[in-house]
């Protein structure tokens, strides 16, 4: 183990492991763009495409902020994947990786940072990676679901957890999804800090593993490729979005930054 300094905080890191933000976008540097009229936009050198924009009353970059206002009855779990999301090709993002391509030996962290800490009463922001939302275990996304965190694994599988009983209670400033094809996956949340540049910043809310030896069943288990999430697949994407099914409408979810880490 080695000590590394992350945003002024010393943390332990496995020997030999390095972490790099290989791609990021600060929306403060992005010109205004309305996804409701033009679906695609280059962000940090990667083309992102709006999906389900018809289910958003606002979906734009305005004054340096990505703003998404999902309509009611939208979701990104349990066979209902109609929430507005902004998606980018994973292979295009991986062009910025150390080797210039996806590396199965490494772990990747996709983080979405909001402009302020929020406490939505219903629905919430989404960040995820996927190859196919409609297939079990091929879409890992970290979300809030009102008073709960939600981790969806694609198709019909999801898990809710009362936010007040986790490491990050109350407000949420950022969400991350972590995936290493040889190791594990997890969902992280940060309460008030942006955790910008920190690969595993925030608190661990959800953890699972990629291992068919110790436990071949259970919600926390993800089967090894090729049957599970294979980010080398041409269909792989990273995305950010927001949803709102019913209850008290939060309104506009505002994002200031997206970043993708490569660790290992």
């Amino acid at each position, binding site marked *: 183990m080695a000590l590394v300094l992350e945003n002024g905080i010393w943390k332990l890191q496995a020997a030999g492991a390095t972490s790099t933000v290989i791609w990021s976008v600060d929306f403060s540097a992005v010109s205004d763009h309305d996804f409701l009229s033009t679906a695609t936009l280059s962000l940090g050198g990667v083309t992102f495409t709006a999906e389900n924009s018809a289910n958003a009353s606002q979906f734009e970059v305005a004054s340096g902020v990505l703003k998404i206002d999902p309509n009611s009855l939208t979701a990104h779990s349990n066979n209902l994947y109609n929430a507005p999301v902004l998606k980018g090709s994973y292979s295009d993002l991986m062009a910025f990786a150390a080797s210039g391509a996806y590396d199965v030996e490494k772990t990747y962290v996709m983080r979405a940072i909001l402009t302020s800490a929020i406490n939505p009463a219903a629905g919430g922001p989404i960040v995820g990676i996927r190859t196919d939302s409609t297939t079990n275990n091929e879409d890992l996304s970290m979300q809030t*679901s009102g008073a*709960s965190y939600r981790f969806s694994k694609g198709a019909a599988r999801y898990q809710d957890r*009362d936010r007040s009983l986790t490491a990050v209670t109350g407000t949420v400033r950022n969400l991350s999804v972590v995936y290493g094809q040889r190791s594990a996956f997890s969902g992280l949340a940060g309460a008030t800090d942006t955790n910008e540049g920190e690969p595993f910043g925030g608190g661990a809310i959800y953890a699972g593993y990629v291992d068919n030896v110790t436990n071949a069943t259970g919600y926390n288990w993800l089967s090894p490729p090729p049957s599970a999430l294979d980010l080398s697949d041409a269909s792989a994407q990273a995305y950010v979005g927001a949803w709102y099914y019913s209850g008290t409408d939060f309104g506009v979810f505002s994002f200031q930054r997206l970043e993708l880490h490569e660790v290992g």
Partner: protein
Amino acid sequence: MYIFESPMANRLLTITSLEPVTGLRVWEGDSGDMNVDVVVADLWSFTMVIHSNDTVTKPAEADDITVTVTRP
């Protein structure tokens, strides 16, 4: 009474209980049924089935817990 809400696909699951529901896990079952593990007070859990017609089958130990399924 505690109320725990979990929006599902085109349905809203509402669980009313004397002890707080602290989490749940959802996965698909046969014939369109949904299996739901409900965790109560982080102390015990039960598994219920939400059928495609929105009826709910739950074990006797959950008799004091009310589950409603509503559609928009």
